[in-house]
């Protein structure tokens, strides 16, 4: 294909600091309108910004995790434009001197290893929110105005929509591991704006860049990028005129539509913020931040494979969220059967969480108790099947697996004497199966085992039942 997609992603991340970027107001979601404001974030005349050290630290932390350089010295800059949600009619951002720059991230997408260069991760302040009333009036809520915002810009290295999707998943997971943001796209804590155009690999010719807005989920980013690639390919193939423009993703219709055409580049009249001296992070501080970086998802994934012998798939699922990975490791440590731990966490635990819309950090069953359940299976005290009954009981009662098994009498029946009668009954009640088995149909034994298990409410040791049946039938 002569025309190659060329996609760059600009991601804005609301940082989970206690206070806003340049004032002491609390950084919170869903407070009453204009209740989290002060002269500074309202841009009242005479007020001055003072940078939030924690926000600076969070950007450095993210930059380091993205293999970026940390600037020895950098500056804040004013981005000047008039809009009512911007209290000062300029945004304090960074321009030609970002805090961190020149990194990369690696991951696997479409079955291929991908390396995306990170141009910069810098610090700025968020804007407020305009609310338009049906009667034509507009209101502004400045609670979000001045919330610390990190902007992560990639080089235009993506070539498929799938790469964009995986990148955002990886980035989201990274941000959560670093504990710098909740990074929920649905709550606007993570906002992605792709820029899509095509480049002709033979002629080097480029189509005009199109920026896509209004993307409220990772899936929307994927779908919008895919749509845009197709639309642009169609346009070049049919010789349609193309424009440098901003397009809006229409979720319902699954298409992008023109928001505005850019005749000339926006002029934000950037200049160094004179109210803030240059920012020069102390190298020792940066070294401390680097040393305190947690194990990152990719490293942890590799370790799960090597240390626990887990399949790639398990490792990916478990490490997608730090708290899930932490939970898994606690279970694995207490039961010494990592694969069983993985199966439980990815299976029953996840199903319960999904059903109850819970996060694993608020899952009522502690890792030690789940490990106890796995141990009972491995010790042959109960079967896996019984374990499925014990599991909800443990969640509901906060008892240990042993206690539940004891109280409910769910212990596996390992005593041949106890099983003798029911084995006889099985043979008597299933003449057809007995006959089939005797004629060489091994599968027929299953029906007899099933009968015994049903009669014993699953408590019979299946291996023992198998063994006894074979003996009785003279196999």
């Amino acid at each position, binding site marked *: 294909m002569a025309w190659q997609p060329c996609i760059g992603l600009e991601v804005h991340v609301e940082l989970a600091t206690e206070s806003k970027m340049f004032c002491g107001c609390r950084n919170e979601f869903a407070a009453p309108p204009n209740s989290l404001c002060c*002269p500074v974030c309202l*841009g009242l*005349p*005479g007020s*001055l910004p003072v940078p939030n050290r924690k926000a600076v630290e969070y950007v450095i932390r993210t930059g380091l995790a993205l293999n970026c350089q940390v600037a020895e010295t950098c500056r804040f800059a004013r981005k000047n434009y008039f809009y009512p949600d911007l209290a*000062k009619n300029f945004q304090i951002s960074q321009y030609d001197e970002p805090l961190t720059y020149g990194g990369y991230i690696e991951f696997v997408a479409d079955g291929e290893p991908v390396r995306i260069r990170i141009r910069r991760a810098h610090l700025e302040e968020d804007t407020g929110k305009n609310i338009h009333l049906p009667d034509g009036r507009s209101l502004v809520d400045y609670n979000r105005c001045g919330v610390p915002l990190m902007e992560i810009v990639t080089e235009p290295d993506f070539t498929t929509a799938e790469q964009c999707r995986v990148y955002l998943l990886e980035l989201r997971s990274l941000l959560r591991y670093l504990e710098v943001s909740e990074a929920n796209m649905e709550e606007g804590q993570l906002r992605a704006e792709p820029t899509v155009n095509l480049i002709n690999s033979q002629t080097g010719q480029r189509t005009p860049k199109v920026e896509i807005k209004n993307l409220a989920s990772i899936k929307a980013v994927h779908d919008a990028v895919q749509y845009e690639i197709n639309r642009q390919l169609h346009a070049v193939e049919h010789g349609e005129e193309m424009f440098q423009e901003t397009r809006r993703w229409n979720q319902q219709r699954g298409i992008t539509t023109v928001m505005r055409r850019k005749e000339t580049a926006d002029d934000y*009249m950037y*200049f160094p913020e*004179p*109210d803030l001296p240059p920012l020069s992070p102390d190298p020792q501080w940066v070294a401390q931040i680097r040393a305190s970086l947690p194990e990152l998802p990719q490293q942890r994934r590799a370790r799960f494979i090597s240390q626990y012998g887990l399949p790639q798939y398990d490792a990916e699922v478990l490490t997608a969220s730090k708290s899930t990975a932490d939970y898994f490791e606690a279970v694995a440590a207490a039961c010494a059967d990592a694969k069983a731990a993985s199966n439980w966490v990815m299976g029953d635990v996840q199903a319960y969480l999904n059903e109850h819309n819970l996060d694993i950090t608020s899952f009522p069953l502690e890792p030690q108790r789940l490990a106890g359940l796995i141990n009972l299976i491995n010790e042959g005290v109960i079967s896996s099947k019984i374990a499925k009954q014990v599991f909800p009981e443990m969640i509901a009662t906060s008892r240990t697996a042993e206690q539940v098994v004891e109280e409910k009498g769910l212990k596996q029946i390992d005593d041949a004497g106890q099983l003798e009668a029911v084995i006889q009954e099985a043979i008597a009640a299933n003449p057809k199966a007995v006959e089939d088995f005797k004629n060489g149909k091994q599968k027929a034994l299953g029906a007899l085992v099933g009968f015994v298990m049903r009669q014993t409410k699953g408590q019979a040791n299946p291996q023992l039942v198998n063994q006894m049946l074979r003996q009785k039938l003279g196999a």
Partner: protein
Amino acid sequence: MQLHELTAYELSKKLAAGEISAREVVAGYYERIQAVEDRVQAFVCQTRELAEKKAAEIDEKRAAGEPLGPLAGVPIAVKDLLCTKGLPTTCCSKILEDFRPPYDATVIERCHQAHMPIVGKTNMDEFAMGSSTENSAFQVTRNPWDLETVPGGSSGGSAAAVAACEAPLALGSDTGGSIRQPAALCGIVGMKPTYGRVSRYGLIAYASSLDQIGPFARTVTDCALLLQVIAGHDPRDATSADLPVPDYVATLDAGIEGLKIGVIRELVYGQGIHPGVKARVLEAIDTLQNLGAECEEVSLPNIDYSMPVYYIIAPAECSSNLARFDGVRYGHRTNRSVSDIYDLFAKTRGEGFGEEVRLRIMLGTYALSTGYYDAYYLKALKVRTLIKKDFDTAWEKYDLLVCPTSPTTAWKFGEFDQLALKLADICTIPVNIAGVAGLSVPCGFDDGKPVGLQLIGKPFSEDLLLRAAYAYEQATDWHKQRPAL
């Protein structure tokens, strides 16, 4: 001697000794204001009720034996661009005509902590843009020495109030000379401290990288006392310096024996310096020498570029600083019908800002625009560095620099055209560009109008600057002369 003729220092001693009450002082000053204000027009707002209440509190505290600062009970006038909680703070602009900030500037807080009653807010050029206070949207302030002439600006109201003894002390702000130049034209002491010495929190910005708040007083001692109150680090201003504040009064009389003083050739002998001004300044230099200082000529080769640098940087910063005045959250909003939000912005700002402010906003917007940024703003920043280097080089050899404060004495209203007016700041602007400290002290009269001597000191050498000014002041009696109002 009448009460209003006493210096702040003299007042403070009488107050401390119980010879006079704070209420009497405030009453005395309002008597003086009533007597002369219709001619001077220094105040855009008088805060008599509050000042009287404050004075009563101070008297009670003193009676109760509570510890009070040296200036407790000494009134102060405040330039109308410093935020005063609940009081009008207009920048003498229609766009902020009804604005009352919900908070006090740091310097105002410090004045409150020092128990200084605020007598009123003073007139100024709109948003501090001007050199004559004629750009005020509200009124014309007259120079107490000659009511037909300007008081200088932009802090003309504060300078005139102190010169007319309507207040013993005042606060102003200085972006390109707005304290020193009116101090010179009104025959009083005015200081622009080093950038970062005084918190700018609550100062409605004109040009953030140049603005600095400073004191007006009739004597150097009073100037030192007021600087003591307002100087020092403020965590709310990221550009304020976290350095200790020396005792400015304690070292005032240490003399200037052996001090090395550079006489800036370009600003003493250069074109545009009025002969009468030059003559007074040269006499002052003789006096400094007689006091034991070693004076010699020094050239600051890049200083001539200060004006063009200033007229790029200041408008650029102001165009951004003043963007917030859009009628959405506070201040004036147009009454005319508007087609959309941008129309609201345009009409509000067109109505609210005066001509000079609009001119500088447009100049600054132009200088910051893509395609012009490198040629104007970036270049100005580079030349600014060169000018700073000139000063740095001078400090290797000299403790202080001297030159006139203003190239002329006070001029008649409307006398200067725009371009010439801008040259009024030729001697003061380099000090803001370099971020160093400057002080104007009266050094005589030309044709009956006051002339100011400017002393310039290296960063954070306000103590030395005050010491030299004090030595000069004590050797002369210019500061004892008062306008006949």
